[in-house]
């Protein structure tokens, strides 16, 4: 019995060790090697945002395979898991720049996680490019953080316009995730533009990441009889909110959300309850913008046999942008990359990418999608000047 136990424990420990290695991915040994360009991938691979991280990493890997060598050197992806947690994210970011000594960082899914990692990148003067972090504070006051997606003030305006003008909603209730910088920001920007348009926010309720019971929040908000509920936050919590709303008998209330919702678990967990919800997003495979969109969609379909999500497209583009920037700079020196990013223009699969003085991509188009028959379906393209 004792022997069996020893073997079991050793096996268990070996497995745990494997789990540790899994998160460093291709990184392995570390250290500097001048024949290799090391690109850090800073994403949540476990925890509440794992699905978001995974679909973004898929895009990064696809671009990595597609583009191949850079400046005559091999490119290596070094993945770290920021565990969907702000504290872990700060540690993971330090590990990337200090131990793994990567040349450039891509990610993270989730503005809260990106903001938490920001200081490590700034202090070590490593260029980081976020694929899908939409909160303004990710790049604000950080000269080394860039992003290739639109921002929340823009997204909030698009959603407010859609609610007020297209849906004809004059009363909106809000349920948002207070422990999430992204959700708090988006709620503020939505509220401002919606009230400017003449609408009224009739009720508000809050919740925390990882909460699972939203009955009270739904009841207090529904008591004010809103036309629509806007619920910025993480996708699983959103799915549970919609599910519990239907269980409480609020069958007709429509839900509106941001870009974070477009992940498979929203539909898997939410089931029929999420049908008809409307979200803003970056990309749709059925509305190709250029040749790169077509190339990307073909590559993805070949590998995964399904349609790519918007985050995968952004993952592809963020790798492409880093690749082109290093190519234009002719080296992996941070200052040279920053100089190159000033004038760089990349034709990505989510449209053309240029950066303003804050390091934000200049974008004026958002895509609206809805859930129909268990699938994210294209609704409309919105352009705002």
């Amino acid at each position, binding site marked *: 019995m004792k022997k069996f136990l020893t073997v079991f424990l050793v096996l268990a420990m070996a497995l745990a060790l494997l789990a540790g290695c899994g998160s460093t991915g291709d990184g392995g040994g570390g250290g500097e090697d001048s024949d290799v360009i090391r690109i850090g991938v800073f994403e949540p691979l476990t925890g509440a945002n794992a699905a978001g991280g995974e679909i973004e990493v898929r895009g990064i890997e696809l671009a990595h395979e597609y583009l191949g060598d850079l400046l005559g050197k091999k490119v290596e992806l070094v993945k770290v898991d920021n565990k969907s947690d702000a504290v872990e994210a700060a540690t993971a970011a330090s590990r990337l720049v200090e131990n793994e000594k990567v040349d450039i960082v891509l990610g993270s899914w989730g503005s809260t996680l990106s903001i938490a990692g920001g200081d490590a990148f700034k202090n070590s003067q490593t260029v980081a490019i976020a694929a899908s972090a939409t909160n303004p504070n990710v790049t604000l006051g950080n000269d080394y953080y860039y992003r290739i997606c639109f921002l929340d003030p823009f997204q909030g305006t698009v959603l407010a316009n859609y609610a007020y003008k297209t849906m004809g909603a004059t009363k909106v209730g809000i349920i948002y995730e207070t422990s999430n910088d992204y959700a708090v920001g988006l709620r503020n920007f939505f509220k401002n533009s919606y009230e400017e348009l003449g609408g009224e926010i009739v009720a*508000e309720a809050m919740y925390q990441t990882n909460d699972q019971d939203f009955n009270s929040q739904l009841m207090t908000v529904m008591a004010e009889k809103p036309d629509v509920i806007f619920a910025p936050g993480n996708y699983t919590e959103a799915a549970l909110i919609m599910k519990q709303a239907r269980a409480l008998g609020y069958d007709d209330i429509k839900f509106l959300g941001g870009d974070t919702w477009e992940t498979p678990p929203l539909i898997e967990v939410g*089931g029929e309850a999420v049908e008809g919800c409307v979200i803003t997003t970056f990309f749709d495979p059925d509305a190709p913008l250029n040749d790169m969109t077509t190339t990307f969609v073909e590559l993805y379909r070949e590998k995964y046999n399904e349609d790519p999500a918007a985050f995968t497209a952004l993952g592809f583009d963020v790798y492409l942008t880093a690749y082109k920037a290093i190519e234009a700079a002719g080296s992996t020196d941070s200052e040279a990359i920053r100089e190159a990013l000033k004038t760089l223009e990349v034709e990505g699969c989510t449209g053309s990418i240029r950066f303003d003085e804050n390091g934000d991509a200049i974008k004026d188009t958002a895509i609206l999608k809805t859930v129909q028959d268990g699938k994210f379906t294209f609704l409309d393209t919105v352009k705002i000047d």
Partner: protein
Amino acid sequence: MSAITSDMLLQSLANAITLGSLYALVAIGYTMVYGILRLINFAHGEIFMMSMYFAFYFVTAAMLPWYLAFLFAIACTGILGIIIERAAYRPLREAPRISLLISSIGVSYLLQNLAVVLFSGIQKQFPPVAMFQDVITIANVRIQKLSIYVPLITAVLVIVLLYLVNKTKIGMAMRASSKDFETSRLMGINVNRVIAVTFCIGSVLAAVGAIMWGLKYPKIEPYVGTLPGLKCFIAAVIGGIGNIKGAVIGALLLGFIEIFIVLFFPALSGYKDAFAFVALIVILLVRPSGLVGEKIANKV
């Protein structure tokens, strides 16, 4: 803000009882193990998580009907509890209590990481069972059938458990062991067996709680047990850790606090979890032994 209607009050009452009953099942596991080993089993939340995965795979991979799947999942969780006790706690029986505590934290991390490796970090949906999830309306209160079953199942299990602890031979052995290992051994009680049974019962209750939790909040991921585990630990302490009735009372209280804080003070809803901890601190300051806990002299 409009006034809170009586419908909303009733609805919240139903929600609070359901949530409290779910907490109770898990809190009992903490309290039983503490009662006997004076150990706060930090791996309890992970046992909760594992049983959700067991149920998930018995339904999706083994394609069993839900009742068989749930039964097997509960059995597997009971066995897991025994294995954990055997591998991580029994070798430390004579070691200082703090080693046991650290061992339990180790088991907790081991199970979490094992789940990440085996089941991946991506959320899965707990298999739905229509019979539990259908919604019925009673006097304007809409509840899932589950909300009726959960308190009933909890009540039945608590009664069975109290009978087991107070009226049976093994229960008497448990109570004796919780007072004093050495003397119990001298009286011919197999303490190791008693402890194994305690872990098994605690894990089985956690499994029942986890399955009902999964039916109500259908999301599974490797960290799904952390927060319920923490809350139920608080519930057990509020009630008086080591006392089964206390755990049930503490759990119901916690359920009520969480639901009604959000209902009466929507502006504070983001701080829902904080109130659980505030309640814990207040209780510890005012009644350190918990609401129903009795003051027991420390073992020398």
